[in-house]
């Protein structure tokens, strides 16, 4: 263990635990998922950074949105995100979730993903290399240290706005609101 971080471990052990065990939802959103198998297997070995893919969203705390988001996929993304236990972090991977990428004038692709769910960080590029995932993960560590990776808190606070945007796309939603009005 790094001796310099000993104070952090004593001050906030839970935070350090979250930081070094990021469990990723293995959710194939678009073409970007092709970068995930080399990242998690022997070549780049994401487990060095404590990143490991898990089977279900209920065990995960990191959500990589890998690639373009069609309207049908957005529904699945919202469902997956709402199932994840807190604290949870989201990273948009590739240029498509940022502003639509090469699908900026498509009739069926969501342009800006942060209008529908909160995003903690973006990885630009088309496609980003697996190294970029690790740069994002190390950057996410700093954000967690400084308590700036607060997407799930923002989702709780501004849930009405997020839900309103989601309902603008889907009309009537099939599931009730996650957070009730207080």
């Amino acid at each position, binding site marked *: 263990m790094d001796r310099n971080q000993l104070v952090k471990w004593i001050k906030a052990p839970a935070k350090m635990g979250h930081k070094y065990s990021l469990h990723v939802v293995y959710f194939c959103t678009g073409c970007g998922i092709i970068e995930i198998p080399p990242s998690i297997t022997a070549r780049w070995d994401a487990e060095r950074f404590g990143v490991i893919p898990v089977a279900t969203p209920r065990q995960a705390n990191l959500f990589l949105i890998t690639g373009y988001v069609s309207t*049908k996929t957005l529904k699945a993304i919202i469902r997956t995100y709402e199932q994840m236990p807190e604290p949870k972090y989201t990273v948009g991977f590739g240029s498509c979730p940022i502003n639509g990428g090469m699908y*900026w*004038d498509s009739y069926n692709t969501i342009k*800006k993903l942060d*209008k529908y769910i*909160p995003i903690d960080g973006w990885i630009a590029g088309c496609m980003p290399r697996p190294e970029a995932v690790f740069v994002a993960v190390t950057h996410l560590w700093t954000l967690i240290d400084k308590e700036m990776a607060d997407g799930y808190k923002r989702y709780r606070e*501004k849930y009405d706005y*997020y839900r309103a*945007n989601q309902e603008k*796309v889907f009309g009537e939603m099939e599931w009730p609101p996650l957070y009730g009005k207080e």
Partner: protein
Amino acid sequence: MIMEELKSKLEKAFGSAKISSNYSNNLAIELDETQAISMLSYLKNLGYKHLALISCVDWIEDNQFELVYVLSAYMPSDDSYSEKEKLNIIVKTRISREEAKYISIIDIFENAEPYEREIHELFGIHFEGHPRLTPLFLVLKYDKPPFRKDFDTRQFVDDYFGNIPPVE
């Protein structure tokens, strides 16, 4: 050569069909909308039993839709690979754009069902005799089918996605 044989056979049976071939194993048949269905069943009886795909082209200047059916033959069970299996037959027919209505070919080729559903959703062509022309891919509501040439995607994107406010 099997292609010349087939060509002369088809010209004899369907006088009005325009038959051409751009590549060595492609045969393109253009014919009237009243004869396309009988052409497809005729080709099926000749052994071209595999419907590879149905596609649609929007010729907006001519005010017509073009339906494209691609057929080929299955390999025989003794694994011999002859010229017949290499051949792709492309049947094209044009229908009116205002009516946008054609006959379903499910009775001839059963696997036409998802293709016709897709074309119905994206181009708005009604296929008579299709059991379920229900939505297949699209979630959003569009004022006209999105693959038509006069559907302005940029306008739609500006109006629809541009009007959703950012949260932060």
